[in-house]
């Protein structure tokens, strides 16, 4: 127990550390809301006053083969009043974005015009999740996700808004004192002040604990002095308030002194804060990304967020809280871009037919719709769990939504561009801009690589505790013959790719989705087997960098499982309550499950086969040869060794 536990904790810490840093690269992201939200008093007023149910973490439990069937009831967290209110709010925001925002101009000039920012502020978009008593709108995760669908129609605006409230001021909401909230939140809610989040440094990319920025406390204990440089700070050029992470010295119980990270609220007008020029970027060009320099900046002691030395946890909570809304943002963008591509496909004729007659074009729109459907379903399922659960643990789910939707946004905005051909490649059309803007989604808020490890290792850590004994026995069959016999039957069935389906998932869905339910159940079982196999094979070594391909495979399976759950649950609800065109939804949900199960089948087979047979070893060998050579190894195709 101690052994497994310890290792897994180490992994997670390592991964989280890496995660933190990657996520602040270009520090900017649409998003919000975390498990820690519950403690923070930012409860969405959306939900009823009856106590919310507690739930075990859904995806983490999937690593154990446990499936919480409550999740198959797609969440409905908004009561009628909140529901209507949300739909009223959507109208002016949509109009504002359509009528007042010139995305091409923002991209070209690499700046959001002042009057556009003023418009966003006066609409109330700077205080979406700030509680009402501090002048904000007090929106829950579901409502925030819905609004993100619209505000993300311009990438620069989405990132500016997110840097302000999803990370910049989030620390105050999550861990701030009453006095800090009362002092800062009202002016942040109106946009009178803009916030930014300052973690990443030039020398501290993957290791947040290695930041060099330092805060020292004056002798009277009243003032900290901060010195250091931060990079990739969204809104960094003009933010009036920054959440800054710096090293502080902490005396340990044994008298030694240790460096810890502490979070501070820094006002620009404390003095000594300077910003570099805005970075010239591929996309989200209107979002202001700068270096920020802190030169002997005096910060009052009451501006520490949370506890001195507790800054690492604050940073984690802020970042974990954000990611889920990327799903609705990505879906919002793709729905818009797809509409334009369809307009072209139906009016452009080649070979005397509209492009939309050709199967290869049709396929794009079909797959794109299915992908958008999955994105939306996952995003709002996650938001629903966040809003409707007591102390929700959704960090893994949120990371999955981020990975899935960022890759979907990138791939499908590229395919929409493809439909236009050469026209799509020009700046006369918005496709290339949306494609460039989408690229950041795979990088910030934790790169997708880091997040896959986070998903896989978080799940394995969760499972490791409970599977400790199982794994021990599996690794030592001779000493545990009885156990191996019982487990052997189950594993024999698994080795024949024929797991026993006993979860009765189809009993919790509309009968039209029975096929999908069985597929999902099959995948859940296969996934459990894959998790056991990986743990038995690597034990504590699973977190070793050499084994990342296996961990990523588990993460990809888990993402597919969550996506299948989300689409089935949503389609079932839509069909049961008679939503217009729900048969279309059923079709998409079933198709998604079919495709996803093929991916899971292959991944589990690869895991079962092991690195020698799956090709992982060859990948490693080729990579090592190339890397050791400092470049491409093979001779030129024209090379001759004889005449």
């Amino acid at each position, binding site marked *: 127990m101690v052994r497994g536990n310890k290792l897994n904790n180490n992994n997670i810490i390592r991964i989280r550390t890496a995660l933190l840093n990657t996520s602040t690269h270009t520090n900017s992201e649409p998003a919000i809301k975390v498990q820690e939200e519950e403690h923070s008093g930012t409860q969405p007023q959306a939900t009823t006053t009856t106590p919310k149910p507690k739930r075990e973490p859904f995806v983490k439990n999937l690593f154990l083969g446990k499936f919480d069937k409550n999740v198959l009831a797609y969440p409905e967290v908004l009561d009628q009043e909140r529901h209507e209110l949300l739909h*009223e709010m959507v*109208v002016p925001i949509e109009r*504002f974005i359509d009528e007042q925002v010139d995305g091409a101009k923002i991209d070209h000039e690499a700046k959001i015009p002042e009057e556009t920012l003023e418009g966003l502020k006066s*609409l*109330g978009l700077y205080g979406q999740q700030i509680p009402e008593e501090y002048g904000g*709108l007090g929106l829950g995760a579901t409502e925030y996700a819905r609004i993100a669908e619209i505000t993300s129609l311009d990438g620069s605006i989405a990132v500016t808004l997110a840097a302000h409230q999803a990370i910049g001021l989030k620390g105050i909401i999550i861990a701030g004192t009453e006095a800090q909230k009362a002092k800062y939140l009202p002016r942040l809610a109106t946009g009178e002040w803009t916030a930014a989040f300052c973690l990443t440094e030039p020398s501290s990319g993957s290791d947040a604990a290695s930041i060099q920025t330092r805060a020292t406390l004056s002798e009277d204990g009243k003032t900290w002095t901060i010195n250091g440089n931060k990079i990739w700070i969204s809104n960094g050029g003009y933010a009036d308030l920054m959440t800054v992470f710096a090293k502080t010295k902490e005396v340990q119980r044994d008298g030694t002194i240790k460096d810890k990270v502490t979070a501070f609220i820094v006002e620009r007008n404390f003095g000594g804060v300077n910003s570099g020029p805005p970075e010239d970027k591929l996309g989200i060009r209107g979002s202001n990304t700068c270096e920020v320099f802190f030169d002997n900046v005096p910060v009052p002691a009451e501006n520490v967020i949370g506890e001195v030395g507790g800054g690492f946890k604050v940073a984690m909570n802020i970042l974990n809280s954000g990611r889920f809304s990327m799903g609705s943002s990505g879906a919002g963008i793709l729905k818009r871009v797809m509409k334009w591509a369809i307009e072209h496909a139906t009016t452009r004729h080649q070979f005397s037919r509209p492009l939309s007659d050709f199967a290869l074009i049709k396929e794009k729109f079909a797959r794109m719709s299915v992908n958008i459907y999955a994105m939306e379903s996952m995003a709002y399922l996650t938001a629903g769990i966040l809003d409707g659960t007591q102390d929700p643990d959704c960090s893994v789910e949120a990371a999955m939504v981020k990975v899935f939707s960022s890759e979907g946004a990138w791939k499908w905005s590229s395919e929409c561009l493809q439909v236009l051909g050469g026209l799509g490649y020009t700046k006369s059309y918005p496709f290339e801009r949306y494609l460039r803007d989408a690229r950041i989604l795979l990088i910030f808020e934790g790169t997708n690589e880091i997040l896959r490890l986070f998903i896989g290792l978080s799940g394995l850590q969760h499972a490791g505790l409970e599977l400790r004994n199982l794994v021990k026995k599996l690794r030592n069959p001779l000493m545990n013959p009885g156990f191996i016999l019982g487990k052997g039957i189950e594993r024999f069935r698994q080795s024949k790719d024929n797991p026993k389906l006993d979860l009765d998932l189809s009993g919790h869905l509309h009968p039209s989705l029975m096929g999908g339910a069985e597929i999902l159940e099959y995948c859940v079982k296969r996934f459990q087997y894959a998790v056991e196999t990986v743990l038995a094979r690597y034990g504590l070594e699973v977190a070793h960098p050499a084994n990342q391909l296996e961990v990523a495979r588990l993460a990809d399976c888990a993402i597919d499982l969550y996506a299948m759950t989300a689409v089935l649950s949503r389609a079932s609800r839509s069909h049961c309550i008679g939503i217009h065109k729900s048969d279309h939804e059923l079709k998409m949900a079933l198709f998604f499950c079919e495709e996803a199960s093929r991916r899971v089948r292959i991944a589990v087979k690869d895991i079962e086969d092991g690195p020698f047979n799956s090709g992982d070893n060859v990948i490693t060998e080729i990579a090592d040869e190339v890397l050791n050579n400092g470049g491409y190894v093979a001779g030129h195709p024209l090379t001759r060794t004889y005449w």
Partner: protein
Amino acid sequence: MSLRVLVGCKRVIDYAVKIRVRPDKLGVVTDGVKHSMNPFDEIAIEEAVRLKEKKIAKEVVAVSCGPTQAQETIRTALAMGADRGIHVEIPAKEMEKLEPLHVSKILAKLAEQEQAELVIVGKQAIDDDSNATAQMTAALLDWPQATFASKLEKTDGELEVTREVDGGLETIKVKLPAVVSSDLRLNEPRYATLPNIMKAKKKKIAKMKPSDLGVNLASHLEVIEVVDPPTREAGIKVEDVDTLVTKLKDSGRI
């Protein structure tokens, strides 16, 4: 003197929606179609709210006649700054036959009941383009009217209204109480902000039926047929100005 202003706001098919004629050719498709407040009525609401902000008006009351969803339109008006709403319930079926005269009678009656000194409505609704409600309301109340207002200023007990007329601007003075209809350039309506939308939830909307106001909805008009506008024929390209002139002469255009 502080005015109470009554503003009419109609729920219409959104201006951006492509209109489709119903198969029975007696109307257009409204099911599942996006609706919003008539843009000219939005201008009317904006003007009333500005009067209130200038402390010329003491209260702005938004009125809408229509089915349940008309309340959404009233909510928008409330979010823009109107103080309260009146929803005159008219079932969707009867809505199709609602005429400017009916609405005028309702507005006139409400103006009396509410002791309003100013009624502002859009110059026309973008669905039926009748451009008649303001005029008939003024007639029913026997109040002066200032239609197609593009500027509105209050002087002592009077309104100075600039109207866009063919060939220029006309400035008139009307005594209060009066009826004004708003033209496109009167103002640029604000966006309802999210905090104001939330606050609007607490504002009251009174519900009533036309019969409560003694208004009879008997039809005076019958729709015989609704058809799509003729599709425009494709143009042609000409080589030079001479050919253009010849073609125009041949087709009898010049």
